[in-house]
């Protein structure tokens, strides 16, 4: 079984080819540099996931961001084996996912891994409480235990009092809370989110993102989160992968991606991002200088937090690292420079 050292999720060279016929040849074509369209025309097959590798540490939130057709939904389904990958290795805390037989897979899904769906995937014929308890019912846990557990989770996601309603009597945001509660009820180590908030309107979406952040702070699960919304990716992800045409353009922390987009495609998303909200003070610190005034700021703070201070008085501020040692200063000019880059 897995030790603490191993990543919770580890993907190596995962491919998914759709369509009947010889997928090995299609993979060779794709490796040789043929585009998806060319391959489709030649072989009638689609390369949905193209040589994807990444790993997610225990307790980390990993966001895969891509537009529709980028293969992100297929990728997360490979990760849960709702779809069989064509090639590659996937291990979960050291266990080989693709070697598991149907029974082992079922055991994995019953306890270690759970999923939240884009259109909620709730069971319209079951009450909210029975939806949440579904995962426990499948495991043949007795009724009083599962109702108690489901009620507890129901309160955690803020739906107390809605247990006896049916899903379609709830608003979209509340339905997704049920979806989240249902996934949490089986106490999984790994949570997969397939665009869970994209069917919700913007205000509710923001609220649900905050809710997830709040829950994650206390529960520390390993999360893989799929989205088409770059802002959502920045807000939730410890690390982000940008997916295009089946493969990853870039993997990095939000700050790494925003400060150094790897491809023109990634740059297009980054251009619209308010940098002051993403980049940390560290990225605008002028090293080696010092100042006599007493104002200080942590290097990990976001730039937007120091703007009011700089507007108040045009004097440099001392930047402190995690050990409270001064590593340099920030001033109006250094902040203005990085914000101006955004205008281009």
């Amino acid at each position, binding site marked *: 079984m897995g030790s603490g050292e191993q990543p919770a999720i580890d993907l190596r060279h995962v491919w998914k080819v759709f369509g009947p016929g010889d997928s090995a040849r299609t993979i060779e074509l794709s490796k040789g540099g043929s585009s998806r369209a060319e391959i489709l025309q030649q072989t009638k097959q689609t390369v949905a996931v193209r040589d994807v590798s990444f790993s997610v540490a225990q307790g980390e939130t990993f966001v895969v961001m891509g537009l529709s057709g980028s293969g992100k939904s297929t990728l997360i389904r490979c990760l849960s084996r709702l779809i069989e990958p064509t090639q590659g290795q996937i291990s979960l805390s050291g266990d080989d996912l693709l070697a598991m037989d149907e029974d082992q897979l*079922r055991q994995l899904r019953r306890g270690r*891994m759970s999923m939240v769906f884009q259109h909620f995937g709730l069971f319209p014929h079951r009450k909210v409480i029975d939806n949440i308890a579904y995962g426990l019912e499948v495991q043949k846990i007795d009724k009083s235990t599962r109702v108690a557990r489901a009620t507890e989770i129901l309160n955690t996601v803020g739906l107390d009092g809605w247990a006896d309603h049916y899903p379609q009597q709830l608003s979209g945001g509340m339905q997704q809370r049920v979806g989240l509660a*249902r996934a949490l009820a089986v106490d999984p180590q790994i949570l997969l989110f397939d665009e869970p908030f994209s069917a919700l309107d913007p205000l509710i979406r923001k609220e649900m993102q905050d809710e997830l952040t709040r829950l994650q702070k206390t529960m520390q699960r390993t999360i893989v989160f799929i989205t088409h919304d770059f802002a959502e990716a920045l807000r939730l992800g410890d690390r982000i992968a940008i997916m295009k045409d089946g493969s990853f353009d870039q993997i990095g922390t939000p700050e790494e991606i925003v400060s150094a987009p790897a491809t023109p495609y990634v740059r297009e998303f980054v251009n619209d991002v308010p940098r002051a909200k993403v980049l940390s003070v560290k990225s605008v610190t002028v090293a080696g200088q010092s100042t006599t005034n007493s104002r200080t700021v942590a290097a990990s703070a976001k730039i937007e937090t120091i703007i009011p201070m700089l507007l108040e008085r045009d004097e440099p501020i001392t930047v402190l690292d995690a050990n409270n040692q001064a590593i340099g200063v920030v001033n109006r000019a250094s902040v203005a420079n990085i914000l101006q880059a955004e205008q281009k």
Partner: protein
Amino acid sequence: MKRRLSGLFVLIILAQTLGTRGFPDSLNIGLAEPITNLQSWVRKNRNDHWMFEFILNPFISVVNFGLDSVESVFTWLPWFVPAIIVFAVVARTRRWGVATFAALAVVYPGLVGVWSESIVTISLMAVAVFICVLIGVPLGVLAALKPRVEVALRPILDGMQTVPATVYLIPIVLFFGIGPAPAAIATVIYALPPMVRLTALGIQQVPKSAVEAAQMFGATKRQILAKVQLPLAVPSIITGINQTVMMALGIVVIATLVGAGGLGQEINQTVRRLEPGRGLVVSLAVVAVALVLDRVSMSLVSTPGAQRVRVKRNTLYMSLIGLALAAVVGRLLGWVEFPFSWGTSFADPIDTGFKWFRTTFNVITRPFNDFIVREILVRAQTLFNETITWQAVVAAAAAFAFYVAGWKMSLFTACGVTFIGLTGRWLDAVDTLTQTIVAVFISILIALPIGIWLGRRPRIEAIIAPVLDAFQTIPSLVYAIPFVMIFSVGPVPGIVAAVVYAIPPGIRLTSLGIRQVNNESVEAAITFGATQRQILWGVRIKLAMPSIILAINQMVMMVLAMAIISGMVGGGGLGYRSIEALTGPDSGLGVEVGLAIVIMATILDRLLQATARRMQAPVAV
């Protein structure tokens, strides 16, 4: 394309000049012979061959036992008990008006004096539908989950819906003999397709995400089926039962040809005795049975969380005991049959009305009748028999098929039409086709304008729609009764009845097409200053054209379905032959007729569907 079409045109001319007029008997392939041989074999071995002794006859006994038990229960019950039960079941949905109406519909057959006949019919329905559910639901589940099963089932189900019911009955009479049980089995076969289809549909329509979610929680296939797919398919399955009941009631009259008894037999007799009044009154009893079963089954379908009357368990038990007591007491007091019968008092004025209509409008109906028979039907017969060569007919049909649907369809059409000739049913087919064309033509003249008019008046349509839908539950023979009275026996009452039968769905589909026209297109036309007429003809009807063609297609199928009934009232053609085959019984003839009708229906259906597709605006790629 153009060059090929002109090539085909030359081919038609050549076929006409060089071919043989009519369809020569010498080309008959003698399809009937082996089947007739089988028939005599079955006759000889019915009593001692193992297949009958150990499989078919025991099966018949089981069905008979079911029929007898249900019948004796209903006969034992005092008349008010079923009414109360129906009221209670429907009232659970809080629709008190509907519940009262349904309870009254239960009482109606008693009121008109056909209580015991209704019980016979209902027992047959109950047993047939029960068997349908027993076979249909598992088949539907299999079809939904295993693509291979679906591929195998689809052509069979499609075929089952075009084969005329009389043709089904032939092998059943052959293997099972005559009586209530064979009639029940025939009904099962006829009414099974919607059960299978709607079960499969219900399972397939379960949201994929719900199934995926269940998978993600580690549910086994069996758990997914039992706890997710089947529960979510329940509304669709109940709709399937509902449709099955309606189909079964639809052949109540035809089933009497193999000894079903009950209401169907009553109706059949009124046609023979020319008593349209009593025919209508008894038919209304069939409609009442249909209505009750429809309402009861629909009240069982509910959206989760819908408001229902909640009854405490104790109250429920108490009322059940009370009802049982009332039943016993009623029984002891002899309140079994309905206390009064107003049967003839309903029927007589209707009969008088029809007689009056007949004598008064003789000046119109007689010439109309003669015109259709002499100028159209007889001429068509001579045309196809003596003027046009069969090769030219095949070539023309193939050319049209090529134009609307390409060479594959063209080949299929040519083979199909030739095959009808080869079975020796050329003239019967011509007869049926001509009658069909006349009926469809009249139906189009009536249904399309009304449909187009209604399409833009949703409020009026909301009122008329249930009436139009109710028309479809009336057994098709009932349509023919008044027209036999008015036109006397012959092809014309069949044609007129077919028109009346086909119009409602024609109107519904046409108005649906008009209503579904994209509002933005209409608004665009208005902003460019188009007149009402330009909007109607240039936008609404143009865009609704595929639906309108499908409406015509539906009407063609309905008219063809009436061919048998038409045969029962003297219409001739394939319909008459099929009854001849059944009463003979002449299985060979039956198979010839069956194939001819199926081929004709399939060709017409495919050609019209292809025409509708041609008219569809190209879909974005």
